């Protein structure tokens, strides 16, 4: 049975200094508004909970501010650092290779929500107790010509 491990909300995201999704609200719902023409990224910081051992996937809850059946694509990256690792946090980041979703059709009706699933094959050898950052970015090679509003990201353990 799959287990939810992290629920990553828009209010708990943090951002790079440039090219980041707008933290906004739609009908009082917090959203991260990912642009259609600028590749934007945001992050969450968590601790890998005790007992974490299985394969992970990310389920991105998203709706659009336009109607249409064109597709969205998201990329999710994981940076997992165990105390004692040789990773130089002062020098840069150490995100594993990006895990990319397939092209997922947006609902034909504006405002309807869908989910985008990303298998985290590249999870940076995450282990319980690790300091973890999760990066979410929209792949602007997709075809949905409007903002994609992310309402929640679930990280699920198989």
């Amino acid at each position: 049975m799959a287990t939810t491990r992290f629920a990553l909300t828009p209010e708990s995201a943090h951002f790079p200094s440039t090219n980041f999704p707008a933290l906004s609200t739609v009908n009082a719902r917090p959203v991260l508004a990912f642009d259609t023409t600028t590749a934007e990224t945001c992050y969450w910081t968590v601790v890998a909970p005790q007992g974490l051992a299985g394969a992970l996937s990310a389920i991105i809850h998203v709706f659009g501010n336009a109607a249409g059946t064109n597709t969205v694509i998201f990329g999710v990256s994981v940076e997992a650092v165990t105390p004692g690792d040789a990773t130089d946090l002062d020098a840069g980041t150490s995100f594993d290779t990006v895990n990319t979703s397939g092209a997922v059709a947006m609902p034909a009706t504006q405002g309807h929500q869908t989910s985008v699933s990303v298998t985290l094959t590249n999870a940076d050898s995450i282990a319980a107790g690790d300091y973890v950052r999760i990066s979410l970015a929209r792949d602007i090679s997709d075809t949905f010509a409007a903002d994609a509003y992310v309402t929640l990201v679930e990280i699920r353990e198989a």
Partner: protein
Amino acid sequence: MAVVFANTQAYTRNSDQLTVGSHSFCAWIYRTSANSVLPGLFIAAWDTPQTDYLYFDTTSGTDLLELASNEANFQVASPTFPLNVWRFVAYSQPSGANNGTAWIWDTAGTMGTASGATRCPTNTIVTFSIASAATGYGLLGRMAGAKLWSAALTQAEFEREMWSLRPQRMANLHSWLPWVGGASGVDYSGSGNTWTAAGSPTSGDGPPVGWGAAPYIIGNPAAGRVIGPGTIWPTVTM
């Protein structure tokens, strides 16, 4: 999300006794162009007929953060505040004739500060204006996460406020205008200090700052912890 000011827009409070005593202000601000006369005021307070005033802005031409009163003014030499970048700015003005202090941070966290002989106005202040369109020198740009306290905050306190749109210090919080949901004069501090819009401020993209809430981390039921299916543990403080 942020509020967009185009010189003729502002949020104003009248009949406000706040500025006769200590007060502090901070916000993320993005200048899009210089005002034709002055670079544009971020916030200003004045009495009638403007014999006493205090305003927070950038200097004309040199893009330096400035705190000015009818007594004195001073600038922060570095980092500068050029157009089209986000800066976190703050000032703290003790009551009476004590020096005010201004701070500016860029998005990399580089900080600059200066102090000078500004002082709280001695007369009762009747107008307090964010973006200050009424002066004719209003801000041309965007603002988010504006917070105003009726107390003189320290640098350490502003540093806590910088990376969270949600206030960290609740004591003496006079007004909080996050502008995440768009342009609005609603005060979210709980103090009920609603600000009146002048013109029609619009909305635009905000700064690289989060709300300041924690993500939810779910424990491991299989490890025997006393939690039910779906129980959520907010275990990280950001």
